[in-house]
C-alpha cells in the first residue's frame, strides 16, 4: 500500500497501521485516498487500528473514526502507545490497547502481498475471510460467503460465494478452485459472474487477460 498506511491480516483479524511521524493532515489525506482507492477491500471490513506513538485528541480520534466509517470500515479497537490517544479511543466507545513503540524506521515491514493465510474449514453463508495477502481455503465455500484477498485465492474445494482477488489493486492475482462456481468473481477492478446454467467440471483458474477475467480449466500438462 502506501508508505504511510499498511494493512496486515492475522489470526485475530485485520490491523491497519498508520504512520506516527508524518503530519496529521498529510496522514488523513493519504488514508482517505487509500480507503477510496481500495474500497473493494475495505468496505465491510472490521479491523484494529494502530496509530503508534501519535497523540490524538478526542476530536481528532472522532474525525478519524468518522472517516473510516464513511468508507465502510468498522474500527473494533485502537492500539496506541500514548495514553491520551487510548483515552480518546475510549471516549469514542472503543476498546483501546497499549501498543509497543513502532520499531525504527517507522514502517519496517510493509505488509506483503506474498503473505498467506491458510484456513481449513467450511466457509458458510455470512462468513467473510479477508486478508491482505493470499488466501488458501481447504474446504468448501458456500453461497453467501465472501473471500477478499489482496493477493490470490486458492480453494481446495467448491468455491460458491463471492470472491475478490487482488482487492488492493493487484491485477496479476488469480483465483483457482477444484470447482469454480462463484456467485460473483472479482479480480482487482474487474467484476464478472458465472454464466447461467451448468458450468464445466474440474479445477479451473481465473485470471485477467486483455483487460477482462478469463476462466480456464486447469491443465497441468500444458503449463509444463
Amino acid at each position, binding site marked *: 500500500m502506501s508508505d504511510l498506511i499498511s494493512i496486515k491480516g492475522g489470526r485475530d483479524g485485520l490491523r491497519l497501521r498508520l504512520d506516527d511521524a508524518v503530519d496529521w493532515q498529510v496522514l488523513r489525506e493519504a488514508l482517505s485516498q487509500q480507503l477510496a482507492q481500495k474500497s473493494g477491500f475495505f468496505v465491510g471490513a472490521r479491523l484494529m487500528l494502530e496509530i503508534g506513538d501519535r497523540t490524538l485528541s478526542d476530536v481528532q480520534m472522532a474525525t478519524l473514526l468518522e472517516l473510516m466509517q464513511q468508507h465502510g470500515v468498522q474500527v473494533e479497537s485502537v492500539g496506541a502507545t500514548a495514553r491520551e490517544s487510548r483515552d480518546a479511543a475510549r471516549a469514542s466507545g472503543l476498546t483501546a490497547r497499549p501498543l509497543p513503540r513502532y520499531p525504527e524506521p517507522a514502517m519496517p515491514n510493509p505488509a506483503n502481498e506474498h503473505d498467506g493465510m491458510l484456513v481449513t474449514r*467450511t466457509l*458458510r*453463508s*455470512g462468513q467473510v475471510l479477508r486478508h491482505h495477502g493470499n488466501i488458501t481455503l481447504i474446504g*468448501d465455500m*458456500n*453461497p453467501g460467503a465472501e473471500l477478499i484477498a489482496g493477493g490470490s485465492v486458492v480453494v481446495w474445494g467448491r468455491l460458491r460465494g463471492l470472491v475478490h482477488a487482488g482487492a488492493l489493486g493487484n491485477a496479476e492475482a488469480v483465483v483457482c478452485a477444484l470447482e469454480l462456481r462463484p456467485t460473483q468473481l472479482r479480480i482487482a477492478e474487474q467484476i464478472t459472474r458465472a454464466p447461467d446454467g451448468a458450468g464445466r467440471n474440474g479445477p479451473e483458474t481465473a485470471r485477467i487477460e486483455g483487460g477482462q477475467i478469463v476462466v480456464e480449466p486447469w491443465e497441468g500438462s500444458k503449463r509444463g
Partner: protein
Amino acid sequence: MARIITITSGKGGVGKTTTTANLGTALAMQGAKVAVIDADIGLRNLDVVMGLENRIVYDLVDVVEGRARLRQALIKDKRLPELCLMPAAQTRDKDAVSPAQMIDLTNQLRQEFDYVLIDSPAGIEGGFRNAIAGADEVVIVTTPEVSAVRDADRIVGLVEAAEKGPPSLIVNRIKPRLVNRGEMLSVDDVLELLAIQLIGIVPDDETIVTSTNRGEAVVYDQNSLAGRAFLNIARRITGENVPFMAITDQQSMFERLFGMFGRRRS
C-alpha cells in the same frame, strides 16, 4: 439431568414449531419426561399447535421476571402427563429476556426433565441468541428450497461460532415427485452444501395441516408418513439406530407398475 436441545432454522415457516411439538410428544410417548419451551416471545405459537392455548395462566417472561414460579408456568399436556409446555409471552418482545436468564431457566428445568426442547424464533438476532444460549445441542430444520438452505447454512456458522458443537439436520417437506423430476433439491443436495449430521427426513404431508389446526400432534396418527418420520427422529435422538425410511412417491410406483403391464400386453 436433561439434554437441552434447541430447534432452529434461520428462515421462518419451515416447520420449527411443528417439529418441536411432535418431537416433544414422540419423546414423551417413549416414556421420557419432556419440557418444550416456546422461545418465540411475542409470536407465541407452540401452545396453539399443541392445543394448550386455553390453559395458559403464566408464561416464560413471568417466570424470568419472578411473577410466577417455574411449576406454575409449566402446562401439562392433554394426553401425556410426562409432557409439559412453557409458553411464550404474547404481549412482550424478544428483549424481555436475556441469554443469561435463558441459561438460568434451562438449568432449573434440567433437574426435573429428561429432555428440554426449545422452539427458536426465526432470524439470527436476539431471539435466536436467547434460544441457543442454554442449549447443549442444536437441531436445524430446513426445507429443500434454496433460500431455506442458505439461511440454514448461516445458522450452522453461528451455532459453531457459539461453540455449541456441530448441529444436526432435519429436512422437512420433501416432495418425492418433484425430487424425482429434478425440480426440487434432494436431501443429498442439501447435505452436500450443509455437511452436517442428518437426523431426519420428513415428507410433505397434508395430515400435518389438519392435525396442526386441530392442536394435535401428528405422531398420534398411525397413517401419517410425517408422523412416522417424527417418531423415527425421536428414536434417533434417544440414541437408537433407526434406518431412514424410503421416501418413495407412491403415484410414480403405480405408474411404473402400469407401464410394466402395458409392455407385457404388447
